[in-house]
């Protein structure tokens, strides 16, 4: 990830999968995206954070799916036909991410990417690696590792609470 950023600054070309979430455009590095699928039946799992929608069957594997709107505490969106699950891979973890719609695959020069600024986007900058400025719009570059790792921290907290409960 750090290497990716370094390359981006150096002016290399990058390919992003761009998707829509609550009216704004977000991009993730195409190398992290395994595939994009339609939203089908999600099985809820008890005792998971609110933003974990549940699990799905991805060709024989059972993977968790998170709702990015809920993850970022955005209001729930309409459950329309444009919604997609972006299946991303981070290390060992395969994860489905529900977005409002997937718009395009974007190729852009690294020097078009600016560092994140809290004045431009509403989202907590810790999840953002940069902002790509196009002619008429902005694409927010998401750091999915941080989105997930922040989640894992939550998970840990939850576990600790549980342990504390048992001890208490």
């Amino acid at each position, binding site marked *: 990830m750090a290497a990716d950023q370094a390359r981006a600054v150096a002016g290399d070309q990058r390919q992003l999968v761009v998707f829509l979430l609550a009216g704004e455009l977000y991009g993730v590095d195409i190398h992290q995206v395994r595939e994009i699928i339609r939203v089908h039946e999600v099985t809820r799992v008890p*005792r998971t954070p609110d933003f974990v929608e549940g699990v799905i069957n991805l060709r024989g594997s059972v993977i968790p799916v998170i709702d990015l709107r809920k993850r970022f505490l955005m209001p729930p969106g309409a459950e329309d036909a444009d919604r997609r699950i972006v299946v991303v891979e981070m290390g060992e*973890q395969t994860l489905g991410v529900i977005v409002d719609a997937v718009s395009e695959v974007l190729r852009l020069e690294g020097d078009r990417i600016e560092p994140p600024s809290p004045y431009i986007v509403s989202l907590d900058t810790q999840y953002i690696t940069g902002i790509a400025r196009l002619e008429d719009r902005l694409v927010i570059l998401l750091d999915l590792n941080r989105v997930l790792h922040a989640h*894992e921290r939550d998970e840990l907290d939850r576990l600790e609470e549980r342990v504390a409960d048992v001890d208490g």
Partner: protein
Amino acid sequence: MSMDELSAEELALFLSESAEMVDTMEELLVDLETGASPDAVAAIFRAAHTLKGGAATAGMTRMARLTHALESLLDLVRSGERAVDADIVDALLGAVDVLRRCLAAVERDGTDAGVEVDSLAHRLESLASGQDVAAAARPGTLAEIPDLDHLVEQAADNGERLLRFDVAVDPTAPMPVVRLYQALLVLQERGRVVHTEPPQRDIEEGAADYAQMTAVVATSDDPAQIVAALGEVSHLQSVTWEEAARAANPAAAHDLPASPQDGAGPEQAGPGTAASPASGATADGPAGAQAAPGSGAAGNGGAGNGGAGNGAAGGQPAAASQAGSMADTIRVSVKVLDRLMNLVGELVIDRTRLARLGHVDLSTQDLKEELELVTGHLSRITTDLQDTIMQARMVPLETLFRKFPRMVRDLARRLNKQVRFAMSGEDTELDRAVIEQIGDPLVHLIRNALDHGIEPPAARRAAGKDPEGLVQLKAYHQENSIFIEVSDDGRGIDPNKVRQVAVAKGLLTADQAQKLDASEALDLLFLPGFTTTDQVSDVSGRGVGLDVVRKNIERVNGTVTLESELGRGTRWIVRLPLTLAIVQAMLVRVHETTFAIPLQSVVEILRVEDRQVRWANGWQMIHVRDQVIPLVNPGDVWGTRFSATWQPSQANPVVVLQSAAAPLALAVDGVLGEQEIVIKNIEGMVGQVAGISGASILGDGSVALILDVTGFTKEVRRLGSQLRRDDRRHERSA
């Protein structure tokens, strides 16, 4: 004839025959000591002789040298000139271990040239000549180090000490020389390595299959810290150090339990090592939720030496286990393979029939009939395939149990206890993935029985018992499960003492402890960080243990419980599902979710009406025949999204579950029926929900969650006690 002339088949034959001989020798040696078989000596002699002949023919000079020494000693024993004592058996068993090492080297490199046999051969020879000079057999004494005096002086000038470290690696670990290299790196970090035996370069290059190293280090660090740092290297069997200046005096500080002689088996390894070859293999076990790290050096924790207390790091029981090491290959009978072949042939026919349907014109009715025929056939074939494959995966417990007599023997000797070990049910079959997972836990329970259960002979005599203790390992098949019991006739466990310790450790309050009945109190032993022995023993670990034992067993959907009678003994009962990957399950619907409940936990399905429900003690209870069972709605535990709807004045479906503790009735919305399900891990983060052990994909592609009955029951009990606490609080405030 050199080994170059051996064909691959001949080499394979030599290896398998020799391995069999070595196994036989080991079994007979353990028998020899217990006097179980009078002809043992002659049989061992024959085995050694056969081995020697084979090794010489195959050009394995080291093996031939060792078996020759072995044979000479055995000859004296056979003729009665030398009486069998524990020292001799130790040495002979040591030879068995080194022979195994030779065979491993031959299998890997085609030669045994890299294996060090001289010191052990010397020892056997000196035993034969009646002079036991074990100490002299130690490799590389310091006297051989060039310029020792000078080095000592130089170190002293620098404010350092010159220390000698002897490091031994579990010879059964993959690539022991790599571990030595890691140990060497640790030493280099802590000081100047001035001399090693074997030479440093050979270790770095992995020139041969070394499993031991002597290193002389000039350092200003505390030796205990260095030993602790070495404990981080996995698969180390023993580390000892001594001050090089005092080389003449071998009474050195032993921080890791060192084996008395170099050929000792891995089960003599102390708690400082956590060689766990089995853990690498969990990757293919669907329930192996922790398989993710997937590194070859799995289970590298357990290095709780020198009070460093980091033993739990690897999540494996801190017991080096020979038991866990199973090859990646499996023997399958040709009959099973033939059946598989036939079934696959049938599948091909079905494929052809299906493909044809696309090319011929058929009426809808005919098409329907043809399709029904083919799918009917297909489902029969796939069921058969599944059964046959499961059968092929079954391995008799014997493969695991076979190592235990030797382990018990060595351990009893180290603990100065007299122990008789009895096994039964070795032919019971289990899925190989389960067998791999339960090796370490069983080793732990057996060690526990010897270390904490069986009393020293004097204490037993004083208690009016046979000075020889009995440890039993029993496997049997009952209902849909395999039971494995480890029992001893030792001192038993005092529930009161368990309560006290748990309270002292702050695991629960004195009040809570008093409320537990005896069996619940004993169950506290499985809490993380619990240990009843006041001083930590180097055999059963340092408080790392029973919680990990339980966790490992639960990982394969098993349970472990114990019964104990003070002064009479303790019995550990491990219950395992027959198969790991596929279970028979009851599918139920709760709200929007389908749950699969392993059938072995389902007692019955009932229809319950309002009038049958009573309130007692904050619980809803139902009367089932003469039993009163708490009724739980999953929604009470998991929130409203998982609530079953209770229809008033109607018969509602209820599943009665049997867990280790007590029965529990689960309210559901509907029962969908019985089905075989394939257990899948839920990838990554949501995999660790209390009460859910995994997921399964149903025929329509949707996902069902597998209920972990033990975990769920625990959760219910936890919530229940919370509720009652709250109730009391309300009462007090009202």
